[in-house]
């Protein structure tokens, strides 16, 4: 059973070869390979982390956007409401003013009418007085030579002409 006894020649060469191979591989193969693996793992985990961060950022941004939009909407509503209020106010004011103006015109017209009426009545009164004087003059002219009955008649006529 020769092959269960280790042969010192084989051991000698194996020690040398394996030692050298271990050294070469350690220095020129395992170091760069393990480093590359580690670096790649690092870069992948970095990339995943940054993607996660970006996702969170986007989510935050979206929330901020929503908030801004909501605020803008609120402001818009506010502005619209204000505008409506102002419009209502202006319209109401204009209506009031118009009313007042109309009232004023009516008042003025009424006063005018009243003044015109007074003037007309005065004029009528004056004319009636003149007419009466004229009538009276004519009657008197006639009556100066007629009877006393006519005098009575004139008087009654005048009575009728009295203004209300």
């Amino acid at each position, binding site marked *: 059973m020769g*092959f269960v006894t280790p042969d010192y020649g084989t051991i000698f060469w194996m020690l040398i070869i394996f030692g050298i191979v271990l050294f070469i591989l350690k220095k020129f193969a395992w170091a760069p390979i393990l480093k590359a693996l580690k670096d790649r793992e690092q870069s992948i985990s970095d990339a995943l982390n940054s993607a996660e961060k970006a996702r969170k950022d986007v989510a935050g941004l979206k929330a901020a956007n929503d908030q801004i939009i909501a605020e803008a909407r609120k402001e818009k509503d506010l502005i619209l409401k204000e505008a409506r209020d102002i419009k209502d106010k202006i319209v109401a004011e204009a209506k009031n003013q118009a009313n007042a103006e109309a009232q004023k015109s009516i008042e003025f017209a009424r006063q005018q009418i009243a003044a015109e009426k007074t003037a007309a009545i005065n004029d009528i009164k004056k004319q009636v007085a003149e007419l009466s004087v004229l009538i009276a003059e004519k009657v008197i002219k006639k009556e100066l030579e007629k009877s006393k009955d006519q005098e009575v008649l004139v008087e009654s006529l005048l009575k009728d002409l009295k203004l209300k």
Partner: protein
Amino acid sequence: MTRIIQSFLVILFAVLFCTGVSRANEADSTATEGGISENFNAGKFVIEHVSDSYEWHIATFGETEISVPLPIILYSSTKGWNVFMSSQFHHGHETYNNFRIEAEGKDEGKIVELNDQGEVLSLPVDLSISKTVAGIFVSVIVLLFIFLSIAKSAKQRVNQAPTGMQNLFEPIILFVRDDVAKPAIGEKRYERFMPFLLTVFFFILINNLLGLIPVFPFGANVTGNIGVTMVLALFTFFVTTFNTNKHYWKEIYNPEVPWWLKYPIPLMPIVELTGVITKPFVLMVRLFANILAGHLIVTVFVSLIFIFAQLMGIEAGLGVSVISVAFSVFMLLLDVLVSFIQAYVFTLLSALYFGMASPEHH
């Protein structure tokens, strides 16, 4: 990359045909018609296929043996250093420079030094590049080629997806790191052991797999050689021992057990010290035995064909060959699985020993 592989193969075949192949016509070989040796010795055939030798045997056609000679490096006290190719021995049939491969006796298969009268003088110091050592060289070339090119692409393609060979081996490297080293040693200390664990894992894996390819320059029984597994286990042992802390030694010399297990006879320290030695020993034997058994069983199935052909004629051999081939294929596939499992087990246990070498204080 294909160009590198091509040139690699060209060089191999050049070595094989220009300088290497030696043909020996032997007058005393007993060959019969039909190409089957009459005295087919299955036991010898199987043992020769799994044991080390001074030449890399490829095939035998009738009387012609084709093998790649390997360098013989000897040191003897009388003649100093001797370096020559194993083809000088003509497959062990001739003596060269007073050296001979002993054919029988207690030194069977070893090189002995003779005196001028042809008597055995002594055993020279034998540092020959045997088949196993040549197999180690081949696997190391493959190993270095694979991982240096992966390292190159890892350096060039920073933070990019791996492609090709890098893509193939990275999951295995990650497996060794995340499922072997990290759980066994711990997050903090695993990094310093990674180069050793990865080298051991891929050295064993590649040698196991190359050992299953029956074509030169592969197929050498490297991890099924106890010398090789011994060196691997010794590395694990020394790495463990040089990375211990005081808790580890306290557990060995003064474990927390009832006092009568320690005084007057230091029972537990003896048991613990034995454990320190048995751990690498078990690593050595497990890998060696598993791979050797795989090689043995495939060769046994193949030699069944010749045993039957010899006993009951060539037709019987042909009939048995169907079953033998089927079983051999099955065993080879099983050995592929075993190759991975043994590489994993060796690495995992090494990592566990490293983890135990400096336990956390409790």
